[in-house]
């Protein structure tokens, strides 16, 4: 049984579960699948990993169009993503227990499966297949958000299909030039490398390619946003880490990614959109870490992915709970909810503390690693940007989200506490946020357990790192206290941007508005061009004679189809061209 289950990519188990769920009328059955399938996969991948050799477990070979595909590659890097993806799958299942939507259940399972399949892909073609499946399955989750989410989902799909197309083009160029489709370090200078970097960049939310995140995530349903926040972007981080570790330009891209969402997030009113911006900002830390490429930095990225999935999921869950109970997640309409939703408030605060990297909480042990690696790499400007961004994170995610939702001025709303299943999911995530940063205990307890999973040894050597040293803690506290002081100061004197209903124009306006108008213009021009050609044909034949005109342009039914006379002329012209060619050559 185990032998059979480990002989193919675990992604297929989840995809099969998704297909079964699509035909399961009882929602209890689907919910069972939602939790059991990722749990089974979690067990299986660890068995496969432990049975593998030094290069990891390889397998699931496939032959498609003459290329051998490796659908299983579980090594010390992909197992980290595999574990946290499967675990997040379980958490999402618990969080969504109350929901009775077949489409979300089905696509969530397939989406999770696609994410795992892509992480375990050993070659670029497999990666591409799951990459596309990821986009196709997730767009249905976006669309569950109601009417407004439909165009957002379309834009989301367009971006991701574009990303897939770029990836395939890059992969083919790369495979052709190197003769191998294996997915290892690619490098930006490799043939097709830039195309693939761009493909990964779209999914990772590089600046100016990021808007699909803030566009689609906040418009999805309560559970949808939680599910979406886990896989797509983190998979892109994985792909970047595999393919482009140590590419210098990523340091600067990452730096920009951490800084610019801060401003948008501070101004934004929809708290789920604030979180989407902060998601972008956290991705920036990871991208910058990949850019450094040292073993310490890569460790930091891997650790940060794990904790980020937990605390970002937790924050989205808490806002989802608010949305579920109150019906809105807009800062201007919330406030004072801590009275009736105390547990949700607590969990949200833990998530906020983790994302702000308070010592003893999730973000601290991973983010400090990336920042330290940045310092060691002598990239002082980006180092400064990361510090600014850390303070900014505290500002918008650490303080703004819980403050405006649960405290602030009393909105008078007295919703019920979140449903039990949401509390359980948030509770588990909160527990892990604290547990994974726990400084005391034996060798595999607390943060040491997380560090032991990382690809490079953290106790000695180049990646040696101890988070709980006096200067780390003090430095971090100074930063956080400073930021908190700034918030209090601005708020006290009324200078903090008030929570207002407003549209913030981000870069996506350019391609939403401009792109739409461009398409309309092309459409109009195409119609006009067609009309012009018909007009020219008419005048041309008009000159030859009305008789010909009557033959070649019959009115009525045939006006759309080309008359056979014209087609005959075409035929003769082509024959003439071919004969001329044959005569000349």
């Amino acid at each position: 049984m185990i032998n059979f289950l480990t002989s193919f990519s675990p992604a297929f188990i989840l995809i099969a579960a998704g297909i079964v769920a699509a035909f399961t009328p009882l929602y209890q059955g689907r919910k069972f699948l939602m939790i059991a399938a990722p749990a089974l996969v979690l067990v299986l991948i660890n068995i496969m990993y432990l049975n593998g050799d030094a290069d990891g477990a390889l397998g699931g070979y496939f032959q498609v169009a003459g290329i051998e595909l490796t659908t299983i590659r579980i090594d010390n890097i992909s197992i980290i993503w595999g574990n946290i993806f499967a675990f997040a799958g379980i958490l999402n299942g618990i969080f969504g227990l109350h929901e009775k939507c077949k489409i979300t259940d089905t696509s969530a399972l397939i989406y999770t499966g696609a994410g795992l399949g892509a992480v375990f892909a050993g070659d670029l073609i497999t990666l591409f297949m799951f990459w596309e499946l990821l986009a196709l399955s997730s767009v249905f989750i976006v669309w569950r958000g109601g009417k407004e989410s439909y165009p957002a989902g379309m834009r989301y799909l367009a971006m991701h299909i574009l990303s897939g197309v770029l990836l395939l083009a890059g992969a083919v160029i790369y495979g052709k030039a190197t003769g191998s489709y294996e997915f290892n370090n690619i490098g930006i200078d490799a043939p097709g490398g830039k195309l693939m970097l761009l493909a990964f960049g779209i999914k990772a939310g590089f600046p100016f390619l990021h808007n699909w995140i803030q566009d689609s995530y906040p418009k999805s349903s309560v559970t949808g946003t939680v599910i979406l926040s886990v896989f797509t972007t983190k998979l892109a981080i994985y792909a970047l880490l595999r393919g482009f570790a140590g590419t210098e330009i990523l340091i600067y891209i990452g730096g920009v990614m951490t800084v610019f969402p801060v401003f948008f997030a501070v101004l934004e009113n929809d708290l789920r959109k604030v979180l989407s911006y902060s998601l972008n900002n956290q991705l920036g830390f990871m991208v910058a870490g990949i850019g450094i490429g040292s073993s310490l930095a890569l460790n930091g990225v891997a650790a940060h992915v794990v904790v980020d999935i937990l605390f970002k999921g937790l924050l989205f869950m808490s806002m989802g709970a608010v949305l579920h109970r109150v019906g809105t997640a807009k800062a201007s309409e919330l406030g004072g909810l801590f009275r009736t939703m105390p547990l949700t408030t607590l969990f949200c605060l833990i998530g906020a503390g983790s994302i702000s990297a308070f010592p003893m909480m999730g973000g601290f042990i991973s983010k400090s690693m990336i920042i330290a690696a940045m310092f060691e790499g002598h990239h002082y400007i980006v180092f400064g940007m990361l510090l600014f961004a850390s303070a900014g994170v505290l500002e918008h995610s650490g303080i703004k989200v819980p403050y405006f939702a649960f405290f602030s001025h009393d909105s008078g709303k007295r919703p019920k506490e979140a449903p039990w299943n949401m509390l359980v999911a948030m509770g588990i995530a909160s527990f892990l946020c604290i547990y994974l940063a726990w400084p005391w205990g034996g060798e595999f307890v607390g943060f040491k357990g997380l560090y032991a999973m990382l690809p490079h040894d953290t106790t000695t050597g180049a990646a040696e790192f101890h988070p709980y040293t006096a200067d780390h803690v003090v430095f971090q506290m100074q930063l956080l206290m400073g930021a908190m002081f700034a918030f209090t100061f601005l708020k006290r004197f009324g200078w903090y941007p008030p929570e207002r209903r407003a549209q913030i124009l981000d870069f996506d306006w350019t391609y939403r508005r401009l792109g739409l108008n461009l398409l309309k213009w092309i459409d109009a021009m195409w119609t006009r061009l067609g009309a012009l050609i018909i007009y020219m044909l008419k005048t041309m034949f008009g000159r030859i004679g009305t008789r010909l005109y009557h033959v070649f342009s019959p009115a009525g039914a045939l006006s759309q189809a080309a008359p056979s006379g014209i087609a005959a002329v075409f035929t003769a012209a082509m024959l003439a061209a071919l004969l001329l060619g044959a005569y000349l050559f």
Partner: protein
Amino acid sequence: MNITSLYPQWVFTHGPALLVVLPLMMAVITALLPSKNAVGAKLAWLFTLGTVVVCALLAFALLMQVISHGPVSYAMGGWEPPIGIGYYIDALNAPILLLITVIGTLCMIYALPSIAAEVEPTKRALFYSAFLVSFAGLLGMVATGDAFNVFVFLEVSSISTYVLVAMGASRDRRALTSAYNYLMMGSIGATFFVIGIGFIYMQTGTLNMIDIARVLQDGGVDSRVTKLAFAFIVIGLGLKLAMFPLHTWLPGAYAYAPSFVTAFLAATATKAALYLLLRFSFTIFDPSWDFVAKSLMYLLAGMGIVGMMVASLQAIFQNDIRRVLAFSSVAQVGYMLLGVGMVTTLGLTAGYLHMLNHAIMKGALFIAVGAFWYRFGITQVSDMKGLGKTMPLTMAGFTIAGLSLIGVPGTVGFVSKLALVRAAAENGWWWAVGVIVVTSILAIIYIGRLIEQAYFHPAPKIGNKTVAKNEAPLAMLIPLWILAISAIVLGINAEWTTSLAEAAAHVLSGGPIVEFPHAVGGH
């Protein structure tokens, strides 16, 4: 177990002839059936179905025979090939025979409800008879090894096809003008083709394909007459296979013919013509001759590329569903021509593979569209609103085939597009890779439009009531889903189809065939 051992021996010795003669004979019998009552029509359908099923079994046996024992040759009436008419079946045309007969079988199942709705009762028996003639013609032009015989069957199938298209008139009068248009164009194509054959005969003094190739190899290469013959044949066949810009007959014919005819034609007719183009360019003429190579590269690949772009754009702006799919067919022919125009083994494999795969997906799409009309009278894209709710199974089959047409991984469309991209990359044709990618995006738009209408708009209301669910009859769903499932199965495990395409490409890259095979039947 060897499947071929289940067949009686005469299947292998007389199969090639039976495949063509049987439907021709049955066409006569079907035409004589009483046509005044419904029983006659039902009987005609049963006869026709039986015939195509037997033909499918024969074609399968021949394919197995070719795979295991190499080419099969058959001397009609016992007259040895260079003098008599010889039939010649190898790895290049055996899969096409199977394709035509299998698609024919599936379409015949579909025909029962579809024809009952679209053709007047008194004409049904004659309709089936015309179909059998067309079917026999297609098989004949693929199976024969005689160049003039090709022309005869080309005309046999074409003329009966014009009739079939015109039968759509009881549904839409525009079928008549379309059929007329098709008749004009088809006749021009056939004339060009026969002029080409005439020039070949003038040059070589023989009409047998293998014999022609032998004489040409002996030294007819540089002759102007040979070049002239090649030019006429390529243009004539280009018209028949809807090479851009000679495709103008196709959208009308596909859009207004009865649904059953469209589904059958879209999946088979252009494929048979493309096969002939391959046969003539590679195994009769020689692709190593300069003017053949240049025409293949500049004319086929060039027109293929232009056709892919222009026809895809045209498909986007169509209002009639069948016209959307028809223009997409022109674009897909462009993919095949592009693969053929590369003249490399990989390119030929990709083109041939796409030919087989395209038949599967287009067959499914047109069958589904016919079902939409059958239940709700839908022909326009804007009328597809809510079909995801009102005809869920039909629409799901349509969607699978549509995704395959786009080239979504896990479907046949992806397999052949990937093969094509690889072939283009191996050839160093990066611009072609770009065009394939761009046209795939265009395909997302024109197929996405249809799928979007069906799934993201509520079903229309009549009075105050939303239109109720009304699934297509089983006789339509079964062929649709057989094709849709094979689009997925052959998309995930493409070994069988790829091996067929590779075998065909192997024949093509082997150069002209000048030796008669040993396995000769018909004595």
